[in-house]
């Protein structure tokens, strides 16, 4: 029976934490929302969305994109939040509790997500370090006229796919600095570390990027760029690959299904509104993507105008190529280029840094729960190991190739497989859809019903399955970027093997505090009463 909030009885016998200390919390609703947006808005919003939209139908891409947002992005975000909030723990803890007595093995799915985050974190830090270096290079346009040659040659000193022990100081030093800063923030915990960083960095990112966009809109050729981005190619809607691209973009952009949102929502208070903030996070993420699309394509329009070519003749419209080769070339030609470059790379650093924090918090939180250590201890012990591995792999002359390959496999195979497993296990094996829906409705102002359960149980796994199969076929038949097969086997498939092995090993290890000594709130009985 519902009661007034003021009359809820309090009994300090169940903290909901596997550690002996009470679970940390965000200081309020907006602290959590800003941090969740900071996580979702990352490098992919700036360097992936604009190019993907352009290459997949332009304005017409917005139709599958919005459908994907509503039918997969927001529903999976709700699912992550529901799992984290109801079972109040890191991904392994939450999945173990969700599984109950018969499903303790489900902890391994949580560790699978944690290991994905380990691999993503160690290369993501390197990209943030590159962006930080380019932020400095912007002031004297150090990349010169040959931006591609500068990036792969002078800066990264990239040789060939493999594993080199030859370090590149220009990458190593900023990478070490990134790790020092990120681990200091992580050691501060949720409220004093992650939330405080996001409250400062996210508004700074929005302001910096808006200045960049406004400047870009007044460049010659900017409108032609926007024309290219927003003009619909209706034929694209009949292409299944365009729909897969839309679901992929939404999926990778929202930071869903690899533990981040489970972890973040586990730090919310028991009576926190869960679904309404999720809507704010989802729409804020897409809003930033639209802004990024405008900024990037207005700038590309200027570049095409300067070159006397059409947008369709430009190369390097997404990812690393867009950011570290195409954009520097544009900045060099632009009046006030150094400031524009500083705004762009500064935005990349801010967006990447807040996302990196959230990825590492998944790892930190899992180790805190399992071994009963503090945030500071996790930052020092676990974070320093990751930092060393990151430096060893990604600050050498082969770092670019390793990064590219690990990124491809961890995201397109690892995260998508984890998401399929999570939706099937939660909805079909353990039949937790009704309980999680009732939980969301018991604490939230935006209600969910059977449609949500159908979306996470049927439509999303099907869409993700097609994404996974398509990618596996491409990687197996075509390889990747012309890299040698042995290298793809080690850095690509080897990454997946290590993630799988790591999740089994970590599941087998002993807990410091019993994670099963936990009672969800509201109780299953209370939820049944509410749904009658």
């Amino acid at each position, binding site marked *: 029976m519902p009661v007034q909030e003021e009359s809820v009885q309090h*009994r*300090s016998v169940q903290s909901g934490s596997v550690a002996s200390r009470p679970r940390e919390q965000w200081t309020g609703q907006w602290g959590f929302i800003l941090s969740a947006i900071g996580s979702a808005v990352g490098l992919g919003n700036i360097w992936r969305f604009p190019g993907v939209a352009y290459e997949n139908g332009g304005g017409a891409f917005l139709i599958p994109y*919005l459908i994907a947002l509503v039918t997969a992005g927001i529903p999976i975000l709700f699912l992550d939040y529901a799992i984290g909030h109801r079972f109040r723990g890191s991904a392994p803890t939450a999945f173990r509790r969700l599984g109950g007595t018969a499903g303790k093995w489900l902890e391994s799915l949580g560790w699978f997500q944690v290991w994905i985050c380990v691999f993503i974190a160690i290369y993501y830090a390197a990209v943030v370090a590159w962006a930080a270096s380019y932020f400095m290079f912007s002031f004297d346009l150090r990349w010169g006229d040959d931006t591609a040659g500068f990036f792969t040659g002078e800066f990264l000193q990239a040789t060939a796919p493999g594993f080199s022990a030859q370090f590149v100081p220009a990458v190593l030093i900023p990478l070490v600095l990134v790790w020092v800063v990120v681990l200091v923030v992580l050691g501060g915990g949720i409220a004093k570390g992650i939330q405080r960083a996001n409250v400062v960095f996210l508004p700074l990112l929005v302001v910096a990027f808006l200045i960049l966009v406004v400047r870009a809109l007044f460049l010659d050729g900017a409108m032609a760029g926007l024309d290219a981005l927003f003009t*619909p190619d209706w034929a694209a809607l009949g292409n299944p690959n365009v729909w897969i691209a839309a679901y992929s973009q939404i999926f990778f952009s929202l930071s869903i299904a690899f533990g981040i949102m489970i972890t973040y929502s586990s730090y919310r208070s028991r009576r926190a509104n869960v679904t309404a903030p999720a809507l704010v996070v989802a729409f804020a993420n897409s809003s930033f993507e639209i802004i990024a699309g405008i900024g990037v394509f207005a700038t590309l329009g200027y570049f095409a105008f300067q070159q006397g070519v059409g947008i369709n003749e430009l190369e390097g419209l997404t990812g690393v190529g867009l950011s570290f080769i195409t954009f520097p070339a544009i900045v060099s030609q632009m009046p006030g280029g150094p400031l524009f470059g500083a705004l762009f790379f500064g935005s990349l650093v801010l967006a990447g840094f807040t996302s990196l924090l959230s990825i590492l918090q998944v790892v930190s939180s899992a180790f805190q729960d399992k071994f009963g250590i503090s945030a500071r201890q996790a930052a020092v012990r676990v974070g320093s190991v990751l930092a060393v591995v990151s430096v060893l792999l990604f600050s050498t002359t082969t770092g670019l190739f390793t990064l590219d390959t690990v990124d491809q496999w961890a995201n397109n195979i690892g995260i998508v497989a984890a998401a399929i497993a999570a939706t099937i296990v939660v909805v079909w094996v353990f039949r937790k859809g009704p309980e999680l829906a009732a939980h969301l409705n018991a604490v939230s*102002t935006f209600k969910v019903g059977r449609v949500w359960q159908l979306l996470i149980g049927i439509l999303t796994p099907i869409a993700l399955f097609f994404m996974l199969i398509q990618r596996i076929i491409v990687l197996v038949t075509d390889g990747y970027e012309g890299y040698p097969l042995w290298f793809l086997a080690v850095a690509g498939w080897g990454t997946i093997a290590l993630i799988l092995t790591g999740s089994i090993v970590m599941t087998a290890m002993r807990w410091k505090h019993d994670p099963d000594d936990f009672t969800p709130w509201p109780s299953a009985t209370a939820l049944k009463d509410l749904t009658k």
Partner: protein
Amino acid sequence: MSGIALTFFIVAAVLVWGGLIASIVFLARQPQLATYPATAELGDDE
């Protein structure tokens, strides 16, 4: 910018940025529930 491109820009802006504004307004008006399920198990971290 052509008419069709401008139309799609406006539609995107209205749906996405409008969605953001609507969700913020919705949350501001209803930040939390008025009532919650009865419980004797609410921990010290509620």
